[in-house]
């Protein structure tokens, strides 16, 4: 039977899924390629290939199309040889192949000035800032959020003020952070912390509050004490949702990275991008931006897959690459947290 492609809310036919995923990346890439390689699409500049008799021009110089045309017009009227040129895009829009080449070169070319970090060193520094900011935030935010969700008095005592502070943009604390914590990594970690923590407490508290109360009641009738309730029922019950929350919050932490790195002594990937822009190597700027995207995206995919392996009862029948790999490593051992085979009934 032929299934319709556009069915509201119905799951997609599985063989379309990978195609569309590829398409989702290919489409913007094609658009970028079109603007880069089709001469009559946009190309507001002219790149001089032969200055002719126009002495104020140089080879490889970029010039606005209108200026170029009027200069040539004038030259023809005056009986001089006109300049020659090809349509070009502004320097801040390099073509895909230029960025691809820069991708390779950025990791193999040493920094222009000694003492400046390589691209991978910049990225690694940024990742560390994110990690520690998110780690410290979760260290306090996760337990506090859960307690807020479980105990209304704690929620009443903490949530209003957190709600208030949450509306103050994290970068606003930049100057204070530098004054208190110096100009190196500490204030940057603090900004990530401030950007994450207050949201985190509220989100985690909300997830905790949404625990299926039936399960709490069932546990109570089975003899669970108040103390056991938290560790034996509440936390396992909300664990898959907490995990999803943490994934999303980690994404938010990333969005604070650039601001954080501007604070104090500019560092990490932000410093790299600024330096490259200063040198007018825009290819490398794109490389750095795309690398941030790739790191974020890959982290998210891996965490997503890991989640499916850790919480098979929550993600039901979805396949996990990590989970399958784990089971393949230990085929004789069925760990409780990984997908299992259901025996057929007798």
């Amino acid at each position, binding site marked *: 039977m032929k299934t319709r492609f556009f069915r509201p809310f119905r799951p997609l036919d599985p063989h379309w899924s990978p195609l569309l995923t590829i398409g989702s990346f290919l489409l913007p890439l094609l658009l970028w390629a079109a603007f880069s390689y089709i001469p009559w699409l946009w190309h507001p500049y002219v790149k001089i290939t032969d200055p002719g008799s126009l002495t104020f021009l140089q080879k490889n110089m970029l010039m606005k199309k209108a200026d170029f045309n009027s200069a040539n017009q004038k030259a023809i009227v005056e009986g001089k040889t006109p300049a020659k040129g090809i349509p070009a895009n502004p320097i801040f829009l390099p073509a895909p192949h230029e960025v691809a080449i820069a991708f390779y070169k950025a990791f193999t070319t040493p920094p222009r000035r000694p003492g400046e970090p390589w691209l991978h060193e910049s990225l690694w520094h940024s990742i560390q800032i994110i990690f520690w900011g998110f780690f410290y935030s979760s260290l306090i935010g996760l337990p506090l959020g859960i307690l807020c969700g479980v105990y209304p008095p704690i929620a009443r005592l903490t949530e209003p003020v957190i709600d208030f502070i949450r509306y103050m943009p994290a970068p606003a604390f930049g100057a204070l952070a530098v004054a208190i914590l110096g100009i190196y990594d500490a204030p940057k970690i603090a900004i990530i912390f401030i950007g994450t923590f207050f949201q985190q407490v509220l989100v985690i508290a909300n997830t905790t509050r949404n625990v299926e109360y039936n399960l709490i009641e069932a546990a109570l009738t089975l003899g669970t004490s108040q103390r056991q309730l938290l560790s034996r029922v509440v936390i396992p019950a909300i664990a898959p949702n907490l995990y999803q929350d943490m994934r999303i919050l980690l994404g938010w932490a990333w969005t604070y990275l650039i601001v954080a790195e501007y604070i104090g002594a500019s560092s990490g990937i932000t410093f790299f991008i600024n330096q490259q822009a200063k040198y007018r190597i825009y290819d490398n700027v794109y490389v750095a931006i795309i690398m941030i995207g790739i790191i974020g995206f890959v982290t998210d995919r891996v965490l997503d897959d890991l989640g499916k392996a850790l919480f098979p009862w929550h993600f039901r029948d979805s396949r996990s690459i990590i989970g399958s790999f784990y089971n393949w490593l230990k085929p004789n051992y069925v760990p409780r947290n990984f997908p*299992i085979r259901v025996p057929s009934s007798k």
Partner: protein
Amino acid sequence: MSSSPLPSYLEQSPEVAARFARIQQRPITLTVQNLSKTFTAPNTPPRLTLDNISFHVHHREFLCVLGPSGCGKSTLIRIIAGLEQASSGSVLLYNKPVQSPGPERGMVFQNYSLFPWLTVKENVMFGRTIAGIPDFLAEAEARQWLSLVGLADYENAYPHQLSGGMKQRVAIARALANKPRILLMDEPFAALDAQTRAQMQDYLLELWRKVDLTILFITHDFDEAIYLSDRILVLSANPGRIAEIIQNPVPRPRNRQQFTSPPFLATYNRLQELIHPVSLLQNPSNLSNIPRLTHTTDQVE
């Protein structure tokens, strides 16, 4: 109520009468005394949901609580389980008042309420490990209970991989693993399809026969109440009051042929009288306001 004379519409055979005499010899497991519950919610007037409920359950008795939807059946069983506080009155288990939930009162919910992160076996082990029993013992016990409910092969499955009937059997095994003094069941089979429900009823009777169980079973299904129970406590609605406690005249062992037997039908009719189900057909004025929207020659009957 066991001391009151038999109503005339319930003709008990000598065997049934003898059974009830034996039941009354047994110790009293659960006593509910003058229990009332008023719900007070903001912006609504206080609502008397349960009004002065008193009854008791003997050891190894199967008591069904029957009543129309919304009459307070769940409220009653939740107060007995300790999940809700009574406004007045008391619940005694072997003469000890109960206030909060405890493992000596097992509860089976309509929506199963299995822990989705635990396998079937771990669900059954839950109450035991909570009580501090070492894992290997709890596991051995859980296996026994699971084979008793016919799910030995599924010990490593997760609840979401089971059918409704299987889930409810796991829930029963989980409650039984605590060896409760009384098993409280709140419409446990209401969400199941008719065939599965019939199987589960037979299965529960078999379990009750072979395991030391005292059961308080809530239902709104007349057939189910008559098929399972020793006595039927009929609640009327608004407020929930005891309309009558019927000593079920249908002899044991039960089988499905009894559904058309005279004592079964007499009990059924009595329940119908007590509960007054609102039937549209009994009152034609309820139907007359539907105008004919088809051609007069379109006769479906």
